[in-house]
């Protein structure tokens, strides 16, 4: 009787444990089911590399949005990457543990602030500031990069902090014993040992920046055109989906799913890159 129940529990748990894989497969299948027929009809090349996005006239080219996503993401990395890594180094190597225990959760609170709130601050504070002092419409690549940079900062920082903390204490002591200053020990020994973990943090931050939607819709301006300067208004891949999903039907809706599919593939590639970087770290330890 008891034994029977044990067997049953184990089977149920096995089924439950497969729920993540099932979800992932469902997501992949439905994205493909909606996106692939469209891609076959229009042609992958024309979809990816044409600059004309006029769903009403049957023109579906997402090239400007791919470029926009790229610009915004690189900009976000330039803002959030250095700040996040600097914070991680400072908190692990240069301040007492007690300070870190207060500051780290405080910065991680940043991660909890909803993206719509970030977007709103972009609209109310950052965009007017840019319009005033740099010109252009204000709602722009630059505004999006600044806001997204702040948003990905906690991701970059917390993964980098873990990586730096994981470097054995003896590495630091060895360097210090050889007469290195604290900073020399950090940048010559510790950072080198923690490199792949930090890279993983940056890649995951990049994934967040590419995938972010609501904040970007609010601050990037959403004009479908190729950006020529950081002050131009752009529409990213994610913004394109969210903006038009509400009223799209037929081919148009399929085009949005195909856009999602492109995003899905890019994110999956980035994630597996980050995972292999993290694995490398585990392997060298």
């Amino acid at each position, binding site marked *: 009787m008891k034994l029977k129940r044990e067997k049953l*529990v184990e089977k149920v748990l096995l089924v439950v444990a497969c729920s993540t894989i099932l*979800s992932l497969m*469902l997501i992949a299948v439905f*994205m493909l089911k909606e996106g692939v027929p469209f891609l076959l009809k229009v042609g992958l090349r024309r979809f990816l590399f044409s600059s004309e996005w006029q769903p009403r006239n049957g023109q579906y080219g997402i090239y400007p949005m791919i470029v926009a996503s790229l610009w915004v993401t690189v900009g976000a990395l330039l803002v959030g990457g250095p700040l996040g890594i600097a914070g991680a180094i400072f908190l692990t190597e240069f301040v007492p543990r007690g300070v870190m225990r207060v500051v780290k959760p405080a*910065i991680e609170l940043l991660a909890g602030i909803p993206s*719509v709130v970030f977007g709103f601050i972009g609209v109310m504070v950052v965009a007017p500031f840019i319009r005033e002092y740099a010109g252009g419409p204000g709602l722009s690549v630059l505004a999006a990069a600044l806001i997204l940079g702040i948003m990905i900062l906690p991701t970059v920082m917390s993964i980098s902090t873990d990586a730096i903390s994981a470097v054995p204490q003896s590495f630091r002591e060895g360097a210090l014993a050889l007469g290195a200053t604290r900073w020399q020990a950090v940048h010559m020994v510790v950072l080198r040992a923690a490199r792949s973990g930090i890279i993983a943090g940056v890649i995951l931050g990049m994934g967040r920046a590419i995938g972010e*939607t609501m904040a970007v819709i609010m601050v990037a301006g959403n004009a479908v055109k190729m950006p020529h300067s950081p002050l131009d208004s752009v529409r990213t891949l994610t913004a394109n989906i969210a903006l038009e999903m509400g009223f799209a039907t037929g081919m148009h809706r399929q085009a949005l799913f195909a856009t*999602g599919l492109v*995003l899905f593939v890019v994110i999956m590639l980035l994630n597996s890159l980050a995972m292999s970087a993290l694995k490398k770290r585990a392997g060298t330890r």
Partner: protein
Amino acid sequence: MRIEPKHTQRAAVVILGSATLFTLVILVLIIVFVLEKGLPAVSLEFLFTKPQEMGRAGGILPTLVGTILLPLVAIAIAMPLGVGTAIYLTEYTRETRLTRIIRFGTDCLAGIPSIIFGLFGFIFFVTTLGMGWSLLSGGLTLAIMVLPTIIRTSEEAIRAVPNAYREVSCSLGATRWETVVKVVLPNALPGIVTGMMLSVGRSIGETAAVIFTAGSSLRMPHSVFDSTRTMAVHFYILAREGISNENAYGTAAVLVIAVLLVNMLTYWLMHRFIARKAR
């Protein structure tokens, strides 16, 4: 030119320190800005009356209800699945190809952006399964989204339970499942609750995945099949369509306070958990 190591050391400390300080200042400024602009609009009346003219006037009661109900539905679905998976991974199997696949799937799921969840939820739950824009569709979509968080934190918490506990339980004649239910889970509870709270925090602030699955009806939901609008979605619509800046700020303030409270509670729990482990 060679710079004295003493000077580079000092420069490094100053630069790294000011970068960290800058980050902290931004965090404080964001919160202060939202609260300063929003709190004047917030009152009991604002919280507990229905909105009028699409939110131009009146309060936010239905969105408050939506913001409480939607994470509840999501958690009710995700907790059994997530904790069950964690139990399976830690107590019922060794590292096999299957567990590696499950871990890989969990990692992948964690990286998918919320707009993709929104698209999927819309085409699968709302359209294909015919649930329409509803609490249920939104809850299911959010459940999949927070599943990785719950699995990871629960797994960690379960692993942290000392093996001696299990051995004692088994030596007293308990079966594996009895050990899990009576010994392992109670001891892992604070960690599991932490994962749950993290998920609630994420669900409260989520917009992209919710707006296409739970819809944006301002009516009070009466069952899980009714559409609802969360505060995050309400705030987005108010701000984006320029309906009312004042009410948008007010909603944002309530939203930020809710998220901060949930997150601080989570840290407090986590801290207690760590303190207990250290004892």
